[in-house]
């Protein structure tokens, strides 16, 4: 599975656990906070991805940015690999 696929499946899992159902698909341009997930949801997603992928790119000081879109989010994980 690609990093993007892993992220998508974890995202779905977190959204399901939080009872968030959105109608349209999440594209790379979707603004993360428009997915319905809040700060806590993202924190949980990042914690889950750390379990699966073995790393958390948001503790890195090299490129301290927070993602705005789903595409930014995926790119941060891909670049960190």
């Amino acid at each position, binding site marked *: 599975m690609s990093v993007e696929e892993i992220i998508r499946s974890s995202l779905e899992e977190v959204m399901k*656990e*939080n009872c968030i159902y959105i109608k349209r698909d999440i594209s790379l341009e979707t*603004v*993360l*906070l428009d997915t319905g997930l*809040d*700060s*806590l949801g*993202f*924190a*949980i997603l*990042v*914690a*889950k991805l750390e*379990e699966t992928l073995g790393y*958390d790119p*948001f*503790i*890195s*000081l090299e490129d*301290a*940015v*927070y*993602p*705005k*879109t789903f595409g930014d989010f995926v790119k941060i994980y891909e670049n960190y690999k």
Partner: protein
Amino acid sequence: MKTINNPLLSHCLDNFIQYEIPVFQADCSYFAKDIIQSKETYNYFFSFAQKQQKIAIQFQDSYLLSLFILFLDGLADVVLILPADASRELASSFCEKLTISNIITDQDSLDRNAITVHHLNGRKGISENELVPSPTSTTWIIPTSGTTGTPKLIPNTTYSLIRTLIRDPAKGRNYRWGNLYDLSRFAGLQVFLQAIVGGSTLILNDDKSIKAKLQALIEHKCNALSGTPTIWRKILMMPEADQLALKQITLGGEIVDQVILEALKKRFPTAKITHIYASTEAGVGFSVTDGKAGFPKSFVQASPLKSDIKVSSEGILLLRPSGESRQLLQMNDERLVDEEGFVVTGDVLGECEDRYVFLGRSSGSINVGGQKVHPEEIEQVLLSFNGVEGAKVFGKKSSFMGYLVAAEIVINKAFDADDLKAKLREYCARHLPKYKVPVDFKIVDQITSNYLGKIDRRSY
């Protein structure tokens, strides 16, 4: 009849109530609205407040709350500031304890759909030489945010609250403060006071959604903003935040890590970034402006803000509030200060070269994005689930929320591990608020305890 003693705050506003009565658009509490809208009701309320000596205030509308703080300063002897979300029971138990018989409130009468953005303008502010402690000024009682047991009631004077704020009205005039905290809590109160005392403008907005709040702040040209690291991370994830032209960024209420400082610097390169260590009990301890997490060891010898700092042999931060608030704390029936006047903050420090960094809470309590979680409460829920024989709840470091709740459990071997975990998660979701549900249940053979026989809850 009393005369007004040392009304430090309304001084900033040029006797705002008598001469500059603001017009309300929002449908607020009639009682409160009337008081500040006509001379007659103002006079009536003035003599009412004069007779009361002790009074409590509780407002959903932060603009009303701020007006009443300004109004009561120097007029009432004791003012209890009730958190906007405090229940009726909690409010009455506080009032009983302090023998307060009247609460001024907009509770139940506020139309929550009518949210209006208000500006409060400090105009004059207070300059350095105008601030003198007065033994007769108002005592403000601010409850701590204890989530288990009864919160403590912490007394402050107007002087002790504004002592450490920047008082340079010539510079302050250029700031337009926004507030992301609840104004009735200590952190929010600090932002309000900084704006007033500093001669700045404060933009008040009670929108519950951060998106709407941010939109209003952009529209009203906010250039100074204070919030927790968790809120700042969220703001950094919002594309519209690019429209914020910030000169001042302030963080507090949670551990500030290096990543958030770097990310803010990158997004708002011209803003001054300050992180503040403060607690309701000890007041403002210190502020750090060098762009690094933690604080320099040199602060322990001499705090630039005159509030003494000490680190105990167990690595716990101790703070000594100023003389005036220390005396009030010592008079309090709860033992909040030691013989030397230090307050034990409960925050554990680690050393990293020439700095101290924050590691967590000595009590094991977990700060999830600014909300305090007591592990014992969650352990009780886990242990009440059929098949769970042992449980340990602790903080798991999170790059987004400071900490998340994690759990280790010992299960009865007769149960299927995966099935039990899934059912336990659902059970927790039904019995606990979202931020208290453990993100991870690790099955272990036994729960480790430390040399005292207590559960070792150190966060990892």
